[in-house]
């Protein structure tokens, strides 16, 4: 064929593409939407089945909790927060990477965001849904949860607006709502794509058509849409920082040694993004293998995620260092005693495992080859998940078990119901994620088309098109044939 069919990307992009250069508007659309409503595969069924069992376990554990009360958990004084709050902080942290990707990286015009923002946002929503459950269940009488909202009531009472716990209510519910709106706005053009596909059943086209709200891609609509999307990104960006800061203030607002520290908000935010990127990698690697999305979620994406894990991991390590240093520097016997207990007390394995998972493991990401090895990255990311969970466990439970009064010191042992609730939310998360993979496009289709266009026109082929009047190469039927080969 003619010479200008040779692709066409700047050197760096050709060596290390954010998207396979052979994709056209049509093939990239088909590739992503082909995942939706794919015939049920054994892998999907197996994964969904396990997750669904987890969800049933969750239902069982919660029912048991509602019947017998929070006494079925291992919590008692002094450790009143226990696994419930540990899990809350862990889950909500995981969500942060999704918002970071969709908001921060959009505003910073990072092209590699495009292939991973959709499923990362879904991950955020599902993680926040799991997180939100724990403080409610931990209330003891969850059916009175609405007391936390300012509503006109016969008791003539207000929530305590000066308390970080009430800030948390506002922060988490705003976070969930804004994430949901952002995600849905991003989905609208893609739902229209699904609606317009002739190979789908009438019912599914009607459902997608209803959800697409009649989107027709008019230029004026895109103009407003683009504006609204950027505004949403600008509004969601400070949420990345604020939500986990408020969660951090839940702790620093308390006087417990190991909590009462100004380091908490920034240290928690870094930890949140750290664990969130670990979850993005843990989801992306199997997902792209199962659905063959290597052309869109390339090794460059994994490489960038690993670099971000390295950076945030180093910040988290610095947080550990500062915490320890401040414990010693305070000169307070309680702080020093708490830190000594953290290193050498009964929970020492948890602490040293944290150091291994969160400080030693990310050092592997200095290596180019590690950052480019998907399954190795997958394993390391899961170590980080474990490390971040243990970090929250130590902060919540170890700090509480060793506070001011030696006569109050006591051990905390999670019961089987604590573990069942944790395993249950993992089941809930993956149940939702498997359904999402099956019924919605896991990659933002319209944004990928935009990326295809941007990548191709970067070459200046537009000028050639105007000159020759020919169809541009990225939309040429001949190239579609080449792409299939």
């Amino acid at each position: 064929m003619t010479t200008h069919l040779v692709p066409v990307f700047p050197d760096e992009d050709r060596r290390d593409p954010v998207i396979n250069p052979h994709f056209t508007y049509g093939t990239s659309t088909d590739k992503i939407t082909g995942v939706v409503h794919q015939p049920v595969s054994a892998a999907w069924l197996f994964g969904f089945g396990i997750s669904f069992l987890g969800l049933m376990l969750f239902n069982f554990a919660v029912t048991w909790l509602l019947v017998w009360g929070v006494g079925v958990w291992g919590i008692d004084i002094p450790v009143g927060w226990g696994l419930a709050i540990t899990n809350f902080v862990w889950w909500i942290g995981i969500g942060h990477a999704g918002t970071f990707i969709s908001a921060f990286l959009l505003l910073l015009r990072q092209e590699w965001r495009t292939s991973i923002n959709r499923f990362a946002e879904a991950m955020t929503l599902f993680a926040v849904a799991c997180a939100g459950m724990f403080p409610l269940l931990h209330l003891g009488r969850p059916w009175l949860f609405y007391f936390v909202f300012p509503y006109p009531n016969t008791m003539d009472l207000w929530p305590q607006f000066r308390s970080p716990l009430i800030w948390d209510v506002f922060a988490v519910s705003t976070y969930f709502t804004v994430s949901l709106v952002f995600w849905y706005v991003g989905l609208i053009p893609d739902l229209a794509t699904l609606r317009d596909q002739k190979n789908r059943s009438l019912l599914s086209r009607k459902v997608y058509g209803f959800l697409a709200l009649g989107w027709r891609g008019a230029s004026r609509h895109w103009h407003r849409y683009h504006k609204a999307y950027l505004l949403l990104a600008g509004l969601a960006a400070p949420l990345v920082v604020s939500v986990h800061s408020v969660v951090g203030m839940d702790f620093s607002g308390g006087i417990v040694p190991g909590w009462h520290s100004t380091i908490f908000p920034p240290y928690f935010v870094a930890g949140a993004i750290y664990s969130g990127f670990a979850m993005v990698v843990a989801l992306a690697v199997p997902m792209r293998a199962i659905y063959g999305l290597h052309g869109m979620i390339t090794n460059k994406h994994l490489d960038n995620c690993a670099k971000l894990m390295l950076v945030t991991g180093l910040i988290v390590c610095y947080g550990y260092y500062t915490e320890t240093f401040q414990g010693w520097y305070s000169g307070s016997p309680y702080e020093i005693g708490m830190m000594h207990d953290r290193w050498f007390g009964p929970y020492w394995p948890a602490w040293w495992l944290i150091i291994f998972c969160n400080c030693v493991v990310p050092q592997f990401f200095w290596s180019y080859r590690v950052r480019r090895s998907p399954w190795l990255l997958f394993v390391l990311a899961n170590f980080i998940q474990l490390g971040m969970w243990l970090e929250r466990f130590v902060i919540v439970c170890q700090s509480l078990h060793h506070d001011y009064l030696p006569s109050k010191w006591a051990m905390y042992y999670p019961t089987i119901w604590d573990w069942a609730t944790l395993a249950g939310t993992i089941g809930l998360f993956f149940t939702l994620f498997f359904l999402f993979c099956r019924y919605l496009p896991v990659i933002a289709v319209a944004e990928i088309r935009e990326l295809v266009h941007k990548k191709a026109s970067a070459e200046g082929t537009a000028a050639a098109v105007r000159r020759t009047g020919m169809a541009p190469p990225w939309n040429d039927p001949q190239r579609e044939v080449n792409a299939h080969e």
Partner: protein
Amino acid sequence: MSKHVPKIYGVVGEFSSAEAILEAAKHATEAGYTHAEAYTPFPVEGLAEALNFYRSPVALCTLLAGILGGATGFFMCWYANVISYAWDVGGRPRNSWPAWIPITFELTVLFAALTAAISMLVLNGLPRLHHPIFETPHFTDASRDRFFLCIEAKDPKFTPETATTFLTHQGALAVSEVME
């Protein structure tokens, strides 16, 4: 007039690239068409501007809603702690405004974000599940890899013949008349 007589909605040309539709849109504006609309599978930079559409009040609505949200959050906390349920805690100030900043901030973001999304939809006239443009042949490709330019019948310069000629001249792959 009988309501069964179909009225023409416009003439639609189909294009295969973003560059082609951008050129066609510019030419349509230059030719004096004021009611033309382009339909594309992704936002094409400069296309709305080429059709003489520059500003939308989405940002203004969002700003106002943000201010309203912040004011609501702060007023709520202030009213609760200073007026409605004033409580003297060791002589500390009732108007303890720094403690109300997180809630003020969260409500600012919440109001602004909801308004950004809703004002976008309302200004776009969505949800509207049916629209005459959907009757265009191959319009389902407008969400895949085709670009459409519609010269609408309400345009004062519109006649089906001139619009068809215009679109054919712009290199449209196909031109069709679409009924209301």
